[in-house]
């Protein structure tokens, strides 16, 4: 492994500082390929996978296959999407600063495509913008992208050809580059999320790329709560969460409960320690990444979610009258009066909903229904953990859960409800 001192000895260390390109000059053949678990702590992509590679003559070789994918957003909700290597979104590409990577891209889509390496400082001809950097990859063709990674941080890859359609159908993924020589202590656990949004009416199978405003499926790593796998940390661990946003039209204010954090990096590079401040919510704009870090010091189950309330609903209908303030049965009674067969809709007498649709909200929680869906996951902090698998629901110590008032308590505090 090449050390930072080696780089200086090469006489090529050329960080240009906060105001310029955060690019380091590496030899054209790159440095020896960085090795997982030895040279870096691999990132965890909940509900996702990391793209495997092989080393060929000192080059890390990856293969992405752009293809149609039958994808499950949430239980009961499938989509005819486009993704990479059979997944929505594509696998997380993970490498180390200084690696030379060769990424083969095979197009098995019914139309031409390209791949853009979002945030990476690559040669212009490798930038993947259809028509600008290269001719598009036609169906059946395989193209080579090859470059040396001159940065570290959280980046993205996505189609940059017929972007509106191809990104709306899911052609995107995370690109994580670890530092060759970390300047800060590494996190104990390193999670990565890619946020995106879709328009998929109940009963439809194909996300609608023409939608501009009414996105009704909001996903983290391609899935909507309650399908989102939880993050798991041991109390006292330093947690890093990388958040990329390739939604079509929406920025997402991502909020964590029970903790505060600092934004330590963007897709532009690391933020100097002196420039950070504590936050509990970070706005992740469209086409950017934010990396946050904090110490998980508060045991419990903590929601981590977009704070836009319509983004924590799945397949929310926006064409219904406002029923707040009405008798709950008023709407049903109107329908039953007009449509005699309404009462006996389903075969079992239960009302039926369209095939291929998910409830708007709802996962079952330890204390009842969780009335959120969409862009929600849970950080589970425990005093002890043995794996990163879901440890189940948190059991709070006695007396630390909100509970109904007793008459004696109210009397004591002079509360007259």
């Amino acid at each position, binding site marked *: 492994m090449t050390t930072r001192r080696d780089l200086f000895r090469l006489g090529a260390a050329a960080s240009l500082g906060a105001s310029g390109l955060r690019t380091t000059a590496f030899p054209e053949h790159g440095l020896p390929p960085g090795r997982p678990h030895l040279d870096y702590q691999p990132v965890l992509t909940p509900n996702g996978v990391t793209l495997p590679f092989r080393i060929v003559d000192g080059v890390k070789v990856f293969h992405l296959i752009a293809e149609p994918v039958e994808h499950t957003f949430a239980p009961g909700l499938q989509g005819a999407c486009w993704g990479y290597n059979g997944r929505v979104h594509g696998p997380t590409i993970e490498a180390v600063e200084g690696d030379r990577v060769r990424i083969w891209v095979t197009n098995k889509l019914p139309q031409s495509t390209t791949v853009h390496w979002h945030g990476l400082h690559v040669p212009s001809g490798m930038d993947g913008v259809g028509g600008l950097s290269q001719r598009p990859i036609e169906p059946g063709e395989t193209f080579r992208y090859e470059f040396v990674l001159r940065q570290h941080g959280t980046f993205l890859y996505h189609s940059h050809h017929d972007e509106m359609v191809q990104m709306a159908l899911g052609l995107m993924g995370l690109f994580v580059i670890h530092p060759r020589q970390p300047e800060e202590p590494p996190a104990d656990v390193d999670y990565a999320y890619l946020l995106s949004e879709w328009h998929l009416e109940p009963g439809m199978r194909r996300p609608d790329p023409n939608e501009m405003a009414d996105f009704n499926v909001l996903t983290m790593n391609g899935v909507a709560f309650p399908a989102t796998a939880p993050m798991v940390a041991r109390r006292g661990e330093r947690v890093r969460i990388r958040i990329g946003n390739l939604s079509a039209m929406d920025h997402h204010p991502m909020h964590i409960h029970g903790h505060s954090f600092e934004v330590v990096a963007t897709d532009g590079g690391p933020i100097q320690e002196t420039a950070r401040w504590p936050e509990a919510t970070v706005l992740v704009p469209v086409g950017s990444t934010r990396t946050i870090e904090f110490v998980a010091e508060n045991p419990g189950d903590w929601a981590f979610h977009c704070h836009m309330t319509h983004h924590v609903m799945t397949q929310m209908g926006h064409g219904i009258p406002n029923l707040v303030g009405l008798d709950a049965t008023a709407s049903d009674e109107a329908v039953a009066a007009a449509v005699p067969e309404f009462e006996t809709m389903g075969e079992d007498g239960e009302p039926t*909903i369209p095939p291929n649709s998910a409830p708007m909200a709802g996962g079952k929680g330890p204390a009842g229904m969780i009335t959120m869906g969409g862009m929600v996951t849970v950080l589970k902090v425990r005093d002890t953990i043995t794996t990163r698998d879901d440890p189940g629901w948190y059991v709070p110590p006695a007396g630390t859960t909100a509970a109904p008032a007793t008459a004696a308590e109210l009397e004591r505090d002079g509360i007259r409800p």
Partner: protein
Amino acid sequence: MSRAAAVSVILVIALVPGCGLPTHAIADRQADAWREAQARVRGSDGIAVSVDDLLADGLSAHDAVQIALHHSRTVPAILAQLGVDAAAWVTASRLRNPSLHADALFFGDGTEVEVGMLAPLLDSLQQPLREAQAEQELLAAEATATRAIVAVAFATRRAFVDLLVAGQRARLADEGATAAAAAATFAQQLAAAGNAAPEMLAQVLAAHADAELRAAEAADAILPRREVLQRQLGLFGPRTAWQTQGELPADPMAGIDLDAIETRAVQRSLELRVANARLAAAHQASAWTDRATLLPGSEVGISAMRESDGEAALGPALRLELPLFDGGGAARTGAAAATGLAAARLWQLGIDVRSAARLLRDRLRGAANRLQFAREVAVPAAQRATTATLQRYNAMQVGAFDVIAARQRELATSDRELTTLAEAWQLRLQLEELLAGALPELSPSAATGATSHPSTAGVHR
């Protein structure tokens, strides 16, 4: 020849008694017409129970035909008209009556008396031809009456279908109004909760008012159709309170044979029978006109005279019209032309009957195909649309208004199905009427294919 023999010959020629059609021929023709009409109309058998009993348990199409034929005064009127027409022809078939004249002159020495009798010259030669003509005209009159009775039966059935359709259309419009009322109630609840903009509330209430108006129009449209049938049945007073039985039968093609329709229509046509008889009559008329114009208005007879002195004498008498100005040529030409006219009418009528048969058959098939499409495709599609909207409603994707709108579209499709069913039944009845021998008056819609039906749900308009 002696004088006496000569007088005898003249008497025989002039006074052949009893020649011509008998008076009972009138009643015979009436009976024949009624019998044949009954044979041509299904359900024309007599009423086994009382009219009141028929009316009591709901009026069927069969009941209506029975009442119209047996209870109303329409058939007696038709048969009386036949009597009037037949009587004229029976009369016309007889020999002209001879005339008798007597003169008395009073002289001083006594009275002179002259008595004579004259009969039309050559009438006995024309009379068989006139009788043959009258025979044909009686046939024509009888067929005309038969056709009229058949037409009464089918007019009754058509009126019955019209009434059923109006009732079913009103029920659909009622369902549309019910749906609109549900929307209105819901909109008012939303407004009371502060959740409906005034414009939205106004739109929903306006749509409801419109639907109620359409339902009322559809209900009012029943009344005139009911009265058409009342008149057809000849009912009045308490007996007008009947209700119809059942709905329009679902299959307007059931039990009708559409093969060789032209031939069968021609064979059964009463109009063609009338026209045939009229042609034969015109032939006969032309023949006797030829004879009658030989010595027009001439009469022969005998004359007897007794002088005042008591001497008496008997001798032949003759009165001749001199064809100086009218030689009868125009009358003969006219009679021949009338024959040509009758032949041409017969020919054209055959064309019309065949055309009507083809038109009604093809339009019935077309309507039946559309009906099948409406039933098997359009209505189920509209129902599935409602079901799908209901599912979206259950998934909270759309609101009650969307479900109600889907329901109203479904009702509009059902209204279209009903319109098609009604059209098919009217065509079926016209075709049946044609095959029963009566060329129906083809309505403009039957002739042109245009339809105009009052809309009830109105959404599809």
